[in-house]
């Protein structure tokens, strides 16, 4: 459904998307992951035909977005980030307008609008002014707009951004309900969202595609890679003891206020962090070092995908996974 080859977009001096190639097959649900500002939105806007690429080739359902823009845009439903809508229109009015804009035959329009409203659960708001809708409803109206012409491909840019947990659950369940009949590319910076809805993930960072993999691969990597301990350890003898615990690759310790220290244990591959915590506490219990806290630290997004691609991303990433 989507073929992207050597896609590059630069805004003068800033390169937003740098030589990205990927493809999405029919019926796939693909998550497009990356921290904010990584180039997700720019890439999606190029796919949707809102922006032109500096170089590279994009095909949507077999139509080149430059040579056959109307056919390409006609075969996808795009939901922009932040779901911009006309506040002065009513929900059904807006969707009817969108259906007309997407060249749906007059006879099918009313039915298509009803269907799209039902799929995105906004039917009860059909006669409400968009200005009066909550953020969650607006997001769903934008989603039903993407659905209204029954396009084979959906491109959803952060469909759950800015919603509260209940609304996120609702929107996710709507998206899951669509997976049978649509190919979907959705972007997010939340790893668990990809886990819960997608088959496959693409990871983009600083404009470059840094990883690509199935969710199963992803899931197996998504375990703690280190453990931190908060210790009462005036003498500083804990570091040596902890380095000897089974499964610990490396132990670090840092002095905090008073006689408190924070120890960080990097784990060897395929080690259960729970076992390490248990063993570490057992070792420390024999001494006069007190254990105040023990926390397994989950890998950040970038670390997970760095592992996936066996690339060396270094440490100290500040992109936390909520």
């Amino acid at each position, binding site marked *: 459904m989507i073929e992207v080859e050597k896609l590059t977009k630069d805004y003068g001096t800033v390169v937003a998307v740098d030589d990205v190639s990927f493809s999405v097959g029919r019926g796939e649900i693909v998550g497009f992951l990356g921290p904010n500002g990584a180039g997700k939105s720019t890439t999606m806007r190029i796919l949707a*035909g*809102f922006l*032109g690429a500096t170089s590279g080739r994009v095909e949507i359902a077999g139509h080149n977005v430059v040579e056959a823009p109307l056919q390409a*845009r006609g075969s996808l439903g795009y939901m922009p980030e932040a779901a*911009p809508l006309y506040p002065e229109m009513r929900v059904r009015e807006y969707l009817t307008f969108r259906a007309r*804009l997407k*060249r749906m035959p007059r006879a099918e329009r009313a039915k298509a609008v009803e269907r799209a409203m039902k799929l995105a659960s906004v039917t009860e708001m059909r006669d409400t002014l968009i200005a009066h809708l909550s953020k969650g409803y607006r997001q769903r109206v934008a989603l039903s707009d993407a659905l209204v012409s029954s396009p084979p491909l959906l491109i959803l840019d952060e469909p759950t951004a800015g919603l509260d947990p209940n609304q996120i659950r609702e929107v996710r369940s709507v998206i899951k309900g669509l997976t049978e009949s649509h190919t979907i590319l959705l972007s997010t910076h939340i790893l668990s969202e990809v886990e819960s809805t997608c088959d496959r993930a693409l990871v983009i960072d600083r404009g470059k595609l840094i990883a690509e993999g199935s969710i199963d691969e992803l899931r197996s990597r998504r375990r703690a890679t280190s453990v931190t301990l908060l210790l009462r350890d005036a003498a500083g003898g804990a570091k040596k003891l902890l380095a000897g615990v089974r499964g610990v690759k490396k132990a670090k310790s840092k002095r905090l206020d008073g006689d408190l220290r924070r120890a960080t244990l990097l784990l060897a591959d395929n080690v259960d962090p729970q076992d390490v915590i248990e063993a570490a506490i057992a070792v420390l219990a024999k001494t006069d070092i007190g254990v105040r806290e023990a926390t397994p630290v989950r890998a950040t997004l970038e670390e997970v995908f760095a592992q996936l691609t066996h690339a060396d991303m270094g440490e100290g990433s500040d992109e936390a996974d909520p």
Partner: protein
Amino acid sequence: MSGLAAVYRREMLSMWVTPLAWVLLTVFLLIQGLSFYTIVVHISNMSAVSMDNGPAQAYFGQSIFLLVSLLLVCPALSMRSFAEERRSGTIEALLTAPVTATGVVLGKFLAMLTTYVLMWAPTVLYIVILRNTGQVDWAVVASSYLGVAFIGAGYLAIGTLMSAMTTSQLLAFVLTMMAQFGLFILGIGEYIFDPGLLHAISGHVSVLTQMDEMSKGIIDLRRLVFDSTLIVVPLFVTVRVVDSWRWG
């Protein structure tokens, strides 16, 4: 032209469900009513009125009120068209639908033009009132309305372009008003310059002279060509501007 009809319908709806068109209509009709009233009072005090200087001619051809109302109405009608879409981000949804830039620009422009013409529609009543007390040459009236429509369409096209060049409605309004005022001042040159090239140019672009002629039933093709240029060139540039957003 894809998307023209859908965009036109949405713009018409959006124009008339929000207060803007109604507020403009009210102000416009107040100004026109004042203009008509003063003309009628003035002419009814005159002992003899020639055929070329009747109240309808004065209303369309000699009244500064007409230009004042256009100076207000045209920028206000066109300021939202693209500036608001870009500020609120709805332009992204609009341009990712299977539409062409030409379709979107023309759809918006025609909706503005329709609204503008609808604003003039109630003024036909003034002519009906005149007919009840004297003679009215309907062909001359038609020529006057043609002039008003062409001039307004040119101003609206300029306004569309200004709106596409900024995300601020206020700035679009001011720029359009300045462009209209500039054209008006250029026309005033007819009364300032000695006969010669500048005088001729000023005479050709003068809105006042054009309306004076058309209110007497003189339809000069050169004036309509000039007006059409004022419509086509800004709209063409607007289409290019809209296309350029994709490649910017």
